């Protein structure tokens, strides 16, 4: 483990402790700390271990998945503005979930919604994988991603038109904005297998991502296999994105912002960037989630909205700076 990773892990642990203190239920700090180490009364332990910490864990895991996926996609496409949304994977994942919600399948079993989201991501992945196996380059994949995102948007509108149950619109809005409110350990565990496999695939692709820094042709001549790297990253990121969309809805920007901030600390190396980006993105969502819990608003701000409020301006700043250096 590098020093940077160690620092990020310690900071994450501190944020977890902080998030145990934050919530709407009034609880003195001493009671919270007692509950955190398994002491104190039953109610306090329940609030901390069954409500606050699971929710924080969901926020961190979703953020880490998006940060890892973003860092991997940026390495693959050699573009600092890439993230799961760019390849249309998030949009298709959302489409899968929308269909599950609107047609009532989601009510059948708690497993249906996550499965539909992962299936949606997998559909986008299949299209990208076929294009990749036919030799499509990074630019082509980006363009296919733009097409997939638009298509998913259109299909979601179609699904709303055809939906038998108009009352589910509020469900949809809640979910499209992204939130980890009321997430239990079960929700995170449900997503865990897809997240772990996705993370493993992306980490295996790491060295290939560094070789790709010199372009596909040079990478090939160095003995790397850009096509294999592409398949690993596409497969891994769709699992990561699908599982995170299933857990928390659609949350943007963290996948772009976290790798960008971490890059100078790893000497811009695409492989060394992966783990720190995941940890930092997890921290960003933890902070965003703590903020929405303690902001004194009538109705709790959605996590996706908070993430966009924090990440949007940073994203614009990055894009503007890139434009200046390219000019």
């Amino acid at each position, binding site marked *: 483990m590098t020093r940077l990773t160690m620092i990020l892990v310690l900071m994450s642990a501190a944020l977890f402790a902080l998030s145990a203190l934050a919530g709407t239920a009034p609880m003195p700090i001493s009671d919270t700390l007692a509950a955190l180490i398994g002491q104190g009364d039953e109610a306090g332990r329940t609030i901390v271990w069954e409500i606050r910490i699971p929710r924080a864990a969901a926020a961190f895991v979703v953020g880490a998945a998006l940060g890892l996926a973003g860092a991997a996609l940026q390495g693959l496409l050699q573009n600092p503005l890439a993230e799961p949304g760019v390849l249309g994977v998030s949009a298709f994942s959302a489409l899968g979930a929308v269909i599950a919600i609107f047609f009532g399948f989601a009510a059948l079993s708690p497993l249906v919604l996550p499965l539909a989201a992962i299936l949606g991501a997998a559909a986008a992945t299949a299209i990208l994988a076929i294009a990749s196996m036919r030799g499509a380059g990074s630019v082509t994949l980006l363009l296919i991603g733009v097409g997939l995102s638009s298509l998913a948007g259109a299909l979601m509108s179609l699904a709303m038109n055809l939906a038998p149950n108009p009352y589910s619109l509020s469900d949809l809005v809640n979910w499209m904005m992204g939130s980890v409110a009321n997430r239990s350990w079960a929700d995170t565990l449900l997503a865990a297998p897809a997240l772990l496999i996705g993370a493993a695939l992306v980490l295996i692709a790491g060295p290939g991502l*560094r070789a790709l820094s010199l*372009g596909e042709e*040079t990478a090939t*001549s160095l*003995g*790397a296999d850009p096509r294999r790297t592409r398949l690993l990253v596409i497969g891994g990121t769709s699992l990561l994105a699908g599982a995170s969309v299933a857990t928390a809805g659609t949350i943007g920007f963290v996948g772009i912002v976290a790798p960008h901030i971490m*890059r100078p600390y790893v000497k*811009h190396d695409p492989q060394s960037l992966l783990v720190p980006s995941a940890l930092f993105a997890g921290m960003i969502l933890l902070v965003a989630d703590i903020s929405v819990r303690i902001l004194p608003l009538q109705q709790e701000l959605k996590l996706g909205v908070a993430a966009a409020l924090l990440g949007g301006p940073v994203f614009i700043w990055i894009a503007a700076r890139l434009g200046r250096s390219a000019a």
Partner: protein
Amino acid sequence: MISVSGLVVHLGGKPVVDGLSFSLAPGEFVAMAGPNGAGKSTALKAVAGVTPITSGSVRFGEADADRISRSARARTLAWLPQLRSVAWNLRAEDVVALGRFIESPAPYDRLGTADRAAVDAALVKSDAAHLAGRSVQALSGGEQARVHLARLLVSPAPSLLLDEPCASLDISHQLSLMQTLSNEAASGRAVMVVLHDLELAARYCSRVIVMDGGRKVADGPPDASLSDGVLRRVFAVQRGPSGGLVRAG
């Protein structure tokens, strides 16, 4: 020993390389010359395995290039493209370390001592040791070219293919680059370099292959392959009264 026989490469349906045959032996320092569009870069890419071959064969020793693995190819031959982009603002030594990707795919900091020493030596050979620690995008064009040369030299491969390595180098660094490559050949490597500067080719290379319209039109020692006839016919130049090349006409 690299043997190319009857190589044909089509790009967009047109033959860019059309029946090229040549061989490259260890210890040789060969220049490939020819006017723009002669097919030099494409021929090099086909040998390096980054452009598909339409017909003909490329053999490394006894092995057919189509049949050997990526890693075996990377251990046989290293290729320096004409366009040398670096997607991220990597450190110079990390770019050079990529030259040993097939041996140890790690950034410079995490290389073993032997690999790290090889990177350091390559940086010295290409006169770029002082660039270690600098970010590649902050370097001048000539400095970047030397970092990429070091990336090529550090490769474990015995054969080196370089596509216009002298572009963007000042005259002093062009001469030192040719001397470095000449030393590599003397130490047993096979070196092939695409060059536009015929005088530089004649001065350093033991053999010059001249291409025109996808075909080989001359192959031999510089005096023979850069004959007055070839110069006039292929390059539209002739030797002037002072010995330098001037436009024919």
